[in-house]
């Protein structure tokens, strides 16, 4: 669920001239929560939150729950305080990935130029599909209708001249809407937004920019480039300046997916004990690896996330020698990364493990080490974990544990 800043003052209609607006950004509305409601229609119209029970965080919330101030990534305890009547559901990732797959198939029928950004959003370049399917907004409407009919969930669509503007347009179309930002209206549209709407402006950059008196996109656009570069650096300054004027030359790259597979847990009580922490890291590595194997992907980078009791969150990552979907390899790196985090003596509230920069495993070229090439048992660990997958498939997740 998107947390991109929106401007309440932004108009809902910027004109109807579609020429040059061939980029679509399709973004599912409160995706996990919508999937749950599609399965259990009796929940429709109610505040529903998907996320870890007890001390977990919010993964998704229906717009009814958001009306109470519930936001994604918010601690569940706080969400429950804000909206005590909310129905809280544990995530069912199997279901979401199934629906996501179907949605991506629908998009793939429109054009092969689909860039999946994550499980619930994608960019499309429909320039070549217009002759067959009509104007971009017509294509967008068709996509929205098909997703709703097939899966009972809603998607919002942004239509614009490039990826950056299309993404902002879909944010402003939510929920269950579509927004066209005509080429000629792009700059006006951008200039009514806060600076946080620009890609690459997080909390930190926002603060830096505010210190220079820049709080809106319009102000940033009117700042001369050298001053901007002094404030936020050469590369980042040029990047933001381009975005502020609606310039974004990145093409839609089909199949390209900055995808990752991760798992994290919040402890019931904050943890000091290293062995408890290590055990949890091992379980998370196991869960992440099993999911990667199910999806047929391997990760090139392992990252960990550690949140201490004071809510300070640190992430650390390391690129592996070769891509993997083996829990043991992920665990060994994750354990070291977690140990390398300076916690200032504080106990740990949350720990997460993630496989990043994932690739399709099929047909992947891997450089084995001499040791692996010489060892007839090479690949044995992976085979063991595959056997584990099979047992869990039949007897459930808790049936067997990994002795790494």
């Amino acid at each position, binding site marked *: 669920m998107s947390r991109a800043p929106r401007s309440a003052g932004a108009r809902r209609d910027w004109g109807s001239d579609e020429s040059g607006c061939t980029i679509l950004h399709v973004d599912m509305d409160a995706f996990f929560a919508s999937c749950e409601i599609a399965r259990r229609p009796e929940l429709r119209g109610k505040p529903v939150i998907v996320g870890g029970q007890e001390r977990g965080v919010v993964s998704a919330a229906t717009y009814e729950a958001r009306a109470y101030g519930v936001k994604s990534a918010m601690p569940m305890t706080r969400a429950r305080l804000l909206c005590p009547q909310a129905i809280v559901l544990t995530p069912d990732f199997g279901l979401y990935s199934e629906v996501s797959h179907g949605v991506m198939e629908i998009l793939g029928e429109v054009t092969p130029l689909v860039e999946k950004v994550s499980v619930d959003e994608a960019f499309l370049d429909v320039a070549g599909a217009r002759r067959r399917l009509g104007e971009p907004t017509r294509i967008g409407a068709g996509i929205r209708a098909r997703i709703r009919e097939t899966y009972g969930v809603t998607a919002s669509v942004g239509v614009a001249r490039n990826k950056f503007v299309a993404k902002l347009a879909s944010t402003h179309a939510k929920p269950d809407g579509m927004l066209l930002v005509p080429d000629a209206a792009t700059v006006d549209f951008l200039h009514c937004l806060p600076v946080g709407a620009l890609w690459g402006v997080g909390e930190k950059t926002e603060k830096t920019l505010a210190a220079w008196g820049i709080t809106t996109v319009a102000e940033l656009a009117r700042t001369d480039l050298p001053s901007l570069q002094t404030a936020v650096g050469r590369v980042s300054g040029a990047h933001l300046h381009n975005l502020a004027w609606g310039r974004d030359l990145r093409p839609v790259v089909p199949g390209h997916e900055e995808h990752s597979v991760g798992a994290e847990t919040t402890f019931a009580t904050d943890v000091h004990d290293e062995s408890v922490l290590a055990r949890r890291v091992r379980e998370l590595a196991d869960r992440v690896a099993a999911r990667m194997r199910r999806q047929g992907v391997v990760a090139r980078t392992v990252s960990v996330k550690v949140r201490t009791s004071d809510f300070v969150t640190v992430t650390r990552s390391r690129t592996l020698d070769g891509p993997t979907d083996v829990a043991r390899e992920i665990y060994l790196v994750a354990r070291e990364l977690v140990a390398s985090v300076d916690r200032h003596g504080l106990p740990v509230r949350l720990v997460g493990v993630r496989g990043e920069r994932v690739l399709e495993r099929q*047909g992947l*070229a*891997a*450089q084995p*080490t*001499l040791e692996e*090439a010489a060892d007839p048992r090479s690949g044995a660990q992976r085979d063991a974990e595959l056997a584990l997958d099979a047992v869990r498939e039949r007897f459930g997740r808790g049936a067997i544990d990994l002795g790494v």
Partner: protein
Amino acid sequence: MKFRVERDVLADAVTWTARTLPTRPPAPVLAGVRMEADPSGILNLASFDYETSARSELPAEVAEPGTVLVSGRLLAEISRALPSKPVDVTLEGNKVVLTCGASRFTLLTMPVDEYPALPAMPELSGTVPGEALTAAVAQVTVAASRDDTLPLLTGVRVEIEDEKITLLATDRYRLALRELTWTPSTPGFSAIALVRARTLNDVARSLGASGGAVNVGLSTGNGVDLVGFEAGGRHTTSQLVDGDYPPVRRLFPDSSPIHAVVATAPLIDAAKRVSLVAERNTPIRMSFSEGQVVLDAGQGDDAQASEALEAVLTGEDIAVAFNPQYLLDGLGALGTDFVRLSFTHPNKPVEFTGQDSLDGEDDSTYRYLLVPIRFTG
């Protein structure tokens, strides 16, 4: 302290001595080069970073003996930039004044009494011809790891057995072995040491390249393990890498039922051309059949390239895929007109050796073992 020295001689010696100075020294004094003017007419230069030490001596007209410590980087840059005239160096208070023609530099000195004592050069163990050392080191260090998180593998294992030295290096994906002969100072000398590849490369370049003999000293088993090299008035010592090197020799196959011989230079050229379309981490394939090898790279919708070369194949047809850089490293290190590739299985390591003619015997004093790339099903 006061002395006069030739500009070229000074620049050369300072550059060599300062070359190993750390960019981020563990203590400020370690960024310095120590200059010691000896009344016998010799200027001694020294640098040290607790791991590697370097010393060189050069002739100088010493008017007043003395010792100072100045910034090595600055001294090296200044001496290289001076005009070609005699250089006068004098200590005035806490400053060193360096004059050469009309140029005059003042350098702040560092406290010389805080400078650590340099390790003594280990006792002479033997002598190796400079050219042979340089060639052998270059062939082996291509396979050494540059990853400092694996300190053991950034070293070259040196095994000495009487007149034979064996050098071994691996980064886990390939393994290089080189044998050379030397003259031990005592017959039957035997030792095993793990020397940083960086140190060896540096010694080979700076000491071996001059062509003369290089004296080698090894001291193991008494506190700090050191290796020392000396040639032409320049000494360098380096701490040995600590740890047990993995037993890698056994990785060479006992026998290989298939082998192919190809002319080296055309193969290198073809591999370079074909690998232009191989993106980072994508392999170059080599398919051997009767009389030829076909190189190809690239796949699917991306750019593709292929090229065929003459090859003499003994045994069954075989196809393997390699990381292009690893392949080129091995071929480039051989230094022979022909290369022999010995195979046991498409997924097993391939051994590269050199030979002088298409139908000759291979020379096993240099062996490069490379693991082919595997495709997941």
